[in-house]
């Protein structure tokens, strides 16, 4: 049992141990859809939503697996739940907003293989959070992911007008910026 306060869990997950910039989780979408502010916002929303649902499911599954004494099934059941949640979200977005569906493209089904979500499920289990703590943790992680994505998108929109040397074009410059962002986020480390 973990007695951390909700506020400290939220700050920890979103700023101090930001999933993208401190734990390196969810780097693929971070690199892939951070080109435009608008797509980044929506991607952040979708990921946060999937995180909240999988967090609740992971809590239930963990309780069940402990009850039937089968911890080795943990990984397999988590990933199945996440995959089905993503499928649901995908169908929902396709129905509600075809334009957004096209904008997110391949990165929507790829939320399944977004390590941030599986990572969240595993971390909350390891830390022994109860249901409400898990939800706050998921919310914080989602907010942190969205924040990192937005910061990156903002910088990359500006970068389009800048002259980037050929040799660092593409992934290299994105990684360098991510490194600098990660440095600035280290400034939050006193908050936790």
């Amino acid at each position, binding site marked *: 049992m973990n007695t951390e306060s909700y506020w400290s869990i939220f700050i920890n997950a979103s700023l101090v141990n930001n999933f993208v910039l401190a*734990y390196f989780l969810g*780097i693929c979408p971070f690199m892939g859809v951070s080109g435009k502010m608008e797509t980044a916002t929506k991607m952040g929303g979708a990921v946060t939503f999937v995180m909240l649902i999988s967090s609740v499911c992971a809590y239930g599954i963990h309780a069940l697996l402990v009850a039937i004494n089968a911890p*080795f099934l943990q990984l*397999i059941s988590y990933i199945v739940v996440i995959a089905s949640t993503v499928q649901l979200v995908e169908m929902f977005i396709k129905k509600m907003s075809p334009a957004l569906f096209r904008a997110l493209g391949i990165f929507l089904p790829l939320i399944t293989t*977004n390590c941030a979500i599986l990572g969240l499920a595993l971390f909350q289990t390891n830390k022994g959070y109860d249901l409400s703590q898990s939800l706050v943790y998921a919310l914080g992680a989602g907010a942190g992911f969205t924040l990192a994505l937005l910061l990156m998108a903002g910088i990359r929109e500006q970068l389009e007008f800048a002259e980037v040397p050929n*040799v660092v074009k593409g*992934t290299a410059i994105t990684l*360098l910026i991510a*490194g600098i962002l990660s440095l600035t986020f*280290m400034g939050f480390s006193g908050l936790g």
Partner: protein
Amino acid sequence: MSAGITKNPEIKAVPSSTDEFIKGLWRDNPVFVQVLGMCPVLAVSNTAQNALAMGLATAFVLLMSNVLVASLRNFIPKQVRIASYILIIATFVTVVDYAIQAISVDLHKNLGAFISLIVVNCLILSRAEAFASKNTIGKSIMDALGMGVGFVFALFCLGAVREILGNGTFFDISLFPDSFQAWIIMILPAGGFFTLALWLVLFNFYKLKKAKA
């Protein structure tokens, strides 16, 4: 005319098993060229030893899942293939997770949740989908070996640089005199981003140089 034909990838002769092996090692290196499976690359490459262990664990899962996917490729219905691949991968990752715990508890503690996170390593799923589901078992083994070795190599490059600069050691052996001030930043998350970026710059530099020549 004949030169034009050999350059066209569609008509080019079927690649041999050795080609499948070599391509993962260098031309299509999963980390430096395809930029796949970044999360573990950055997260556990703070020492050469962690990087090597993580690379080997991933390579093992890649090999086993490629073999199984290739042998089941005619039985898995197309609609549920991704789900089936993930289940296969998750099974082998669970095996590796328990194996590492049995071999060295310290190592298991260092790598932490990142062993479980091999499941969502895009590299493994992409090889299953793009290669093993369409090729014979033999070729899939060569492909997995090549990609696996390429991945281990890349992780090792990163881990070595970060450990030497950030800690002043290499496999826990001290390299510098005591007066050496370690660059703490290199073992922190930011250092991971910088090191990978610089390796990519190096690769780009050679690519551009070659294109010019």
